[in-house]
């Protein structure tokens, strides 16, 4: 009989599920992790609702960092942010596989193992999208001086972006809104950033921008057009690097 731990699609949720599975001393064929809402019921399975706590998540995080090393933790953390229903199983499978090889810290090199390979793949996808948004994200200055950005990512990349912008713009008040997952991060000048979940956006407030802001957007659009070399123009090459899904939130593509 297989026991499946059901959790929410958050890092805390997934890590809590893994905590419970680990406590029950499950193996690949006796336990699994499933996400609430993305559940496909199977026969001969026990479904258990995970009680999610910060404590469980921290314990799992510490355990992974200690036994598999920081680089492997970052792969696992990124995989936990991916838009993929099987990510919980892949992470658990990776952790179980790590127990069986001689040096657990080399687990991410064990690419011929399907779970490890999946975590690696997911981590690469999420890392790639986060990296893309570090460049493609656009702030606009609202009338109250706050820099506001809206993104529509596939994966939950906000927590990958926040440290980057906090380091880069420490003396600014800024906010990034993830329209796909309805989450946001807020950063107040000189302080640490905070993550907010399940919030609705004040549409009027975030479109209230000053003339100065419009002028800089115009300068940027002008620059964007002149910097391209006419005799090398290629729309398809542009799309190849900068797919349409990014363009809709970028000021230079809004006419």
């Amino acid at each position: 009989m297989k026991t499946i731990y059901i959790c929410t699609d958050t890092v805390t949720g997934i890590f809590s599920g893994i905590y419970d599975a680990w406590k029950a001393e499950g193996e690949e064929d006796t336990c699994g992790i499933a996400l609430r809402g993305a559940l496909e019921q199977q026969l001969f399975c026990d479904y258990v609702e995970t009680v999610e706590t910060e404590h469980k998540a921290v314990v799992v995080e510490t355990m992974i960092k200690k036994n598999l090393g920081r680089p492997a933790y970052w792969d696992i953390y990124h995989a936990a942010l991916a838009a993929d229903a099987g990510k919980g199983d892949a992470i658990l499978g990776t952790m179980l596989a790590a127990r069986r090889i001689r040096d657990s810290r080399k687990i991410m090199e064990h690419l011929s193992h399907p779970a490890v390979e999946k975590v690696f793949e997911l981590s690469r996808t999420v890392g790639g999208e986060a990296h893309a948004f570090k460049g493609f994200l656009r702030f606009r200055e609202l009338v109250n001086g706050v820099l506001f950005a809206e993104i529509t990512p596939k994966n939950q990349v906000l927590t990958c972006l926040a440290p980057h912008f906090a380091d880069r713009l420490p003396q600014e008040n800024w906010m990034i809104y993830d329209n796909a997952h309805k989450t946001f991060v807020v950063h107040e000048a000189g302080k640490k950033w905070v993550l907010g979940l399940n919030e609705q956006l004040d549409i009027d407030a975030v479109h209230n921008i000053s003339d100065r802001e419009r002028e800089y957007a115009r300068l940027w659009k002008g620059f964007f057009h002149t910097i391209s070399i006419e005799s090398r123009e290629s729309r398809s090459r542009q799309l190849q690097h900068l797919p349409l899904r990014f363009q809709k939130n970028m000021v230079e593509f809004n006419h």
Partner: protein
Amino acid sequence: MRIQETMSMYDKLNILSDAAKYDVACTSSGTSRSGDGTGMGSCEQTGICHSFGADGRCISLLKILFTNECIYDCKYCINRRNNDVPRTSFTPEEVCTLTMEFYRRNYIEGLFLSSGILKSPDYTMELIYATLFKLRKECNFQGYIHVKAIPGANQELVRRVGFLADRMSVNLELPTAESLKLLAPHKTRKNILAPMRLVQNGMAENKYEIQAYRNAPRFVPAGQSTQMIIGATPESDYQIMQVAESLYQKFDLKRVFYSAFIHVNEDATLPARTDEGPPLLREHRLYQADWLLRYYQFEAAELLSEEHPNFNVLLDPKCNWALKHLEQFPVEVNRADYKMLLRVPGIGYKSAGRIVKARRLGTLGFQDLKKIGVVLKRALYFITCSGRMMYPTKIEEDYITRNLLDTKEKLPDGITGMTYRQLSLFDDMRFGSAGAVSLR
């Protein structure tokens, strides 16, 4: 046209970015730096692309000239003094404001500042220094700065600018001294190489300073690069690769950029204008070969020779090399050393690294290679897994060439020059040099 003092910011930016766009380098990579918490900006080792223009080129830096006035008369350059184009200059304040305001909106990763020569090389370099000083010290900007060293400028000035910038570059302009003399009569090879050497030495000294004093200021931490124009003069690919190779070896350059020649001026010394557009495929092949030099432990003399001085237009340089050295293939993936893996078409340096690590934990099969990122449709002719090839194939140049050509190389979109053509009895697909000549 005379400088118009009252020109709007929009028009200035328009003119001075238009004049800077032919410069190729727009990378923001090579240095990693956290913000210090008081100013604005940071740098990432890999660099960050912030947008892609209509030509599909990455936009990472605010790429502008300080001024497009110039006392020189380089035949290929839009800003040559004989051209009648509107001229203007920024002030250091304007450059700083633009950079800071663009940066905080995350439009850009930093500043790329080049310039025409206003009055004299020294005068121009001083203006650039004043701008960077203001940006770094007054605006407290910690983002990426790429700056051009002006050939002929005072050494001390170049050195001082180097402590404010992340990357410096001196344009080689053209591959050989003769071409330079012909197309850029006011520039000399010596004047170009001198600041390049200066930056190289500065970086070497700085390395010791940083070892001795951890907080010593950094000199050009992201290294220096250069660029040359391809197709304006008759050099062969072999000559160009040799120049690039010696720049990497003797001047410690981070990158050499190749810029397909674009007609902006009419001049008797320039090649005749054709309908084919810039030689983008040739540029692409040079970049591929450049990667082979930097990441794949190839030497220029292995890829080309006096007899075959140009790249095959139909095959990338690595495939071409492999086909000429079939006696070294197939290689056994589970045993071959890293250096040999790098030479297999379809295996990149990242996949090669992953293979070396993964095979310690088990024997690799073709499915594993696929997951690792190996392009099997190219690699399958050159590798075995546990002694078996993926399919029964012949190790024969003609056979493999035909099959590789069938798989269609994935060229960057927009590159033309390798179009479908009428088959004729006398076509010989194996000889690249013939094809390369027809490209010009």
